[in-house]
């Protein structure tokens, strides 16, 4: 009896067979869902607070360019940085926006110059061409409840600051 107690039991090592069928099912569903929501656009947008985008039937993908956002309270953002608020004055030109856009324009010009000097590969050439074609473009993200008066001021100021190609960012799948 005593001998038996101290006998070390030999563990039988069986090959554990984990059934991964259910895991694979989940992965396939996830893959299909993600493939459906895949967006080839290079526009990465973080919609600011209190902005409800208007619905549209448009299916044209956005491109990366300067992003001007205006919330329902008329707060102004440029590339996700708040710069102020649209004043209630009758002036068509918004000075805060004009200054910020000019700064942005200068930055873009410098980036283009740098790229022109260092361009070597075909990929660089492609990047340079994209930057040049988007140089005059401005993505306007505006709350749907705002009036045309605000939009007109934004477009007027953008055009004056050297961004005369307006792209209205809308919500699709309408």
């Amino acid at each position, binding site marked *: 009896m005593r001998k038996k107690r101290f006998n070390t039991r030999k563990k039988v090592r069986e090959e554990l067979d984990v059934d991964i069928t259910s895991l694979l099912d989940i992965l396939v569903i996830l893959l299909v869902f993600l493939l459906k929501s895949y967006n080839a656009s290079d526009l990465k947008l973080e919609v600011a607070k209190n902005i409800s985008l208007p619905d549209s039937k448009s299916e044209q993908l*956005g491109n990366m360019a300067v992003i001007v956002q205006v919330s329902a309270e008329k707060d102004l953002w440029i590339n996700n940085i708040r710069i102020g608020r649209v004043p209630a004055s009758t002036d068509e030109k918004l000075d805060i926006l004009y200054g910020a856009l000019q700064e942005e324009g200068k930055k873009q010009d410098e980036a283009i110059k740098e790229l022109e000097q260092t361009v070597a590969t075909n990929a660089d050439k492609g990047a340079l061409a994209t930057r040049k074609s988007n140089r005059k473009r401005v993505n306007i993200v505006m709350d749907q409840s705002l009036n045309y008066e605000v939009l*007109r001021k934004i477009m007027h100021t953008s055009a004056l600051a050297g961004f005369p190609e*307006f792209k209205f960012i*809308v919500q699709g799948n309408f």
Partner: protein
Amino acid sequence: MAFRQRKKKKDNCKPNIIPILDAVFIFIFFLLMSAQFLEIYEIGSDAPSVKTISEDNKDKKPPLNLTLEVKPNNIIVRTGLDGNIAKTVGLKDGNYDYGDLAKTLMTLKSKHVGETSVIIKPDSKVQYKRLVFIMDTCREVPSGQPSIVARNDKGETVETRELFNQVIFETII
């Protein structure tokens, strides 16, 4: 001996799916990074530009010069250099009658199939949401409606679903 059939051993052959799983995981991470759950698109518009045309380069056919005057209670569709009123689109259930606007634009497009631009002149009080609807209506034939088939300036038959997709706002500069 010659007729003895060899018994085939049935091995429990399992495919090695580990590399496939690895690839699927990497693919999932890539898709998760690039996924955008808010479907965002754009509608393009350019600031109006002025172009001087010499007498020789003038169009033989007078331009359509399609202009939509968007007022709080109606949309006035004007055509031609004189700005003749082609149609006044009213309200329907509190919104503009977009169906009527689309019909008017389709009629105009069938007569001027080569024209692609529309000038929008909204009132200051018009909501941005409504302007987006108007731009959508201007850009293409509504779903459920047949395509437009017409002859262009060269006499060729053209079939299109595009209406006036070059939107210009008149009152910017």
